[in-house]
């Protein structure tokens, strides 16, 4: 098991370096709009002395590969550079915003688990019923919905119209996290973010349940005198959940990296929105730092999911047959 983990980590390293390389290449002066030195300086007048000083500090005079080395070693030490716009270290900015994105993603996962898994189970138990048809159709439809449009619609309906209809009494907030951050503000953004994934979870849960319920061991369990409920929820479910749990695990990373659209629509102060604003303002260190952080987190989550899968399925955890 330990060997497996170590091996996986070794595989991840070149990929991570590749990511940094691509980001670095993008940052080469001339490629991205805006003179980086000018951007750093901002409004202040740019004297040659100042320019020289900045170039020195940022190693801009060195050959490209040296710059890259500085860049990577910086990352290894946790230094992602300084924001052009704000002058603060990128790491500070990101760590400020990162918990917000994590909260949102976590809320999304909870939605997925609660709605997705139950919908999938009900759909499988009552195959071909109205509920089943609903689940199957809605998965196709949800996949085709642009997430940000869904967010807009939810805002429009639950935020604004609902408020009108109930004379301001009942509504869901549509912007920001609340001050202090509260649960109500999480509802709409979380649903928006998780919508497509929930559809997938329901679909996978359904097909896994159907497959499990068609297995021979179900017949054996019935032959032992178990109730139908015990058979479905103990014997079938435990088998069906394994792939679903792995999917949800991976989805945590997906949600975190994909939150940018939802955060923009709902003005949610998270990492995604921060990166987006930085792009608009040409604040490249923030952009690149943000991408690196997200990539690292997603890789880490995927590794955890891999390990947990091996732990969950006894066929993998304990090897083959013994005499």
């Amino acid at each position, binding site marked *: 098991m330990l060997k497996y983990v170590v091996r996986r980590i070794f595989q991840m390293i070149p990929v991570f370096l590749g990511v940094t390389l691509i980001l670095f290449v993008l940052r080469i002066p001339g490629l991205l709009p805006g003179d980086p030195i000018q951007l750093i300086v901002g409004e202040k007048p740019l004297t040659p002395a100042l320019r020289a000083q900045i170039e020195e500090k940022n190693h801009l005079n060195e050959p490209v590969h040296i710059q890259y080395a500085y860049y990577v070693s910086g990352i290894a030490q946790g230094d992602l550079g300084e924001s052009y716009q704000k002058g603060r270290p990128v790491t500070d900015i990101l760590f400020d915003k990162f918990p917000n994105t994590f909260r949102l993603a976590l809320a999304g996962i909870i939605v997925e688990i609660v709605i997705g898994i139950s919908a999938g189970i009900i759909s499988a138990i009552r195959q071909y019923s109205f509920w089943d048809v609903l689940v199957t159709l809605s998965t196709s439809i949800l996949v085709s919905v642009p997430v940000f449009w869904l967010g807009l619609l939810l805002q429009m309906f639950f935020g604004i119209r609902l408020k009108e209809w109930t004379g301001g009494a009942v509504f869901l907030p549509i912007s920001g996290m609340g001050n202090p951050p509260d649960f109500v503000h999480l509802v709409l953004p979380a649903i928006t973010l998780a919508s497509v994934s929930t559809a997938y979870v329901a679909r996978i849960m359904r097909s896994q349940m159907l497959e499990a319920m068609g*297995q021979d061991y179900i017949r*054996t*369990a019935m*032959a032992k005198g178990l109730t139908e409920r015990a058979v479905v929820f103990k014997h079938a479910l435990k088998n069906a959940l394994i792939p679903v749990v792995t999917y949800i695990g991976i989805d945590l990373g997906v949600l975190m990296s994909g939150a940018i659209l939802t955060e923009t629509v709902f003005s949610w102060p998270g990492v995604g929105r921060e990166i987006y604003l930085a792009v608009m303002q040409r604040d490249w260190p923030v952009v690149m730092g943000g991408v690196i952080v997200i990539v690292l987190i997603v890789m880490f989550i995927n590794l955890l999911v891999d390990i947990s899968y091996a732990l969950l399925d*006894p*066929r993998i955890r304990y090897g*083959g*047959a013994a005499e």
Partner: protein
Amino acid sequence: MALLEVTNLKTHFTTRDGVVRAVDGVTFEVKEGHTLAIVGESGSGKSVTALSLMRLIPDPPGKIVDGRITFRGESVLGMNDSAVRSMRGDRIAMIFQDSMTSLNPVFRVGYQIGEALRIHKGMTRKEAHARAVEMLDLVGIPNPAQRARDYPHQFSGGMRQRAMIAMALACDPDILIADEPTTALDVTIQAQILELMIELQQRQGTAIIMITHDLGVVADMANDVMVMYAGKQVEYGKADEVFYRPLHPYTWGLLASLPRHDVDEKGTLLPIEGQPPSLIDVPPGCAFHPRCPYAQERCKREIPELREAAPAHLTACHFAGQAGFGQGAAGKGEGVA
């Protein structure tokens, strides 16, 4: 009164293509501590018969449409759900052909064996586990305490089948139904498993219903034999009778196609010509007539009744028991003397 009495059982399945008459009128009984062998090709209805006894027929599409099943005097078909569930696993237990797929891969073997004990005998986890270890020992698995904590995929094929037997016998049922328990196993292991079953039967007094297509298996174990074809019962009687004085042409075919090591002829295997019929579109008259070398006009029109053609030996053939039937009259259809 016998332990289990089945009268005119009919189980049909309603499918898109028509009604599948999987079991179409079988009558038999199982006595305390005895072994009944149900023999037939794939699709003859033997497994469906067994599942019907436990009321494990999925509805839809299947349904027991006729007949009576009486267990210890009580009507099985009349039981409510709760009574059926308490019967299953406790007084009638079943083991299946494929032990790998019949055991749940994500639960430990000891847990699965103990499950019936927890449900039917009210044991605690610990008690059930201890008893499961005992059962594993009983079926001859070495290191049972260790093994009980293993998962099914960690067992070899033969051991898994033993574990299934342990699971079935945990509550000391009156009847053990074994659906092709050795078909998927190596020949040497087959023999071991059968030995085990015989031994356990002697020790615990369990009646066994052995379902198989392999007459060799039956020869060692059965008190009574029932031969099935196309959902119908074609022969039924004591094992010796059916083996040494078979009455039905299908049984003759089955016996003739047995590989024999004491035959000094060229000894080619003689499978019966043709295929088993579709159970939706059963041939008219005697279902076996398309493949029967002795078929006559009457066989194509009239369904033969199950009758006692010899003492305590029933068969469903128009000509069974008639003098000279099956001897020298092959193929000519000149009437049987």
